[in-house]
């Protein structure tokens, strides 16, 4: 999440809101946000409902510990990074950039 925070200005330029999701409690996420200086929401999915809905639980069983979804303003998924690719926010940022260019 530190890498996403590092690129937060780039994401803002493409009119993108970054949302982190984990199965931690809001209290744990508050400490984590302070540790890494996160200015974006870290959402708490303690029931794992959303983690399941997005198929991320299946990815975890395939040993991919990360997944990033880029969702456009119409609520459509436009880009997915899984596993180590999701550790680096670059391709997610490029996807946001493309979305903004397409619109213009």
């Amino acid at each position, binding site marked *: 999440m530190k890498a996403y925070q590092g690129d937060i200005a780039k994401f803002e330029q493409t009119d993108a809101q970054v949302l982190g999701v984990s199965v931690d409690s809001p209290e744990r996420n*508050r400490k984590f946000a302070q540790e890494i200086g996160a200015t974006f929401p870290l959402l*708490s999915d303690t029931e794992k409902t959303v983690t399941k809905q997005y198929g991320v639980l299946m990815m975890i069983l395939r040993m991919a510990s990360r997944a990033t979804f880029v969702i456009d303003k119409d609520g459509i*998924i436009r880009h997915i990074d899984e596993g180590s690719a999701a*550790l680096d926010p670059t391709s997610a940022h490029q996807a946001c950039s493309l979305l903004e260019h397409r619109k213009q």
Partner: protein
Amino acid sequence: MSLVRFSPMEAGHQISMALAVLILLFPLTPAVSPKVGDPAPDFALSDQNGKTVKLSDFRGKKNVVLAFYIRASTPG
């Protein structure tokens, strides 16, 4: 392999079997992840300050980068 008797040697295997069975039995678990072009499932989750954030809050306003990091204090 026995699913009934418990032995430490088989514990790891039994846990993975139990997980597999749970996933097969749990009807709300989709078999596949949503794909590019699919509508993103809406949600309402609490952020680190206790504020509820909904995906639909950003509809028509912002692109959303939804980054699952599973557990706090992991790299990236």
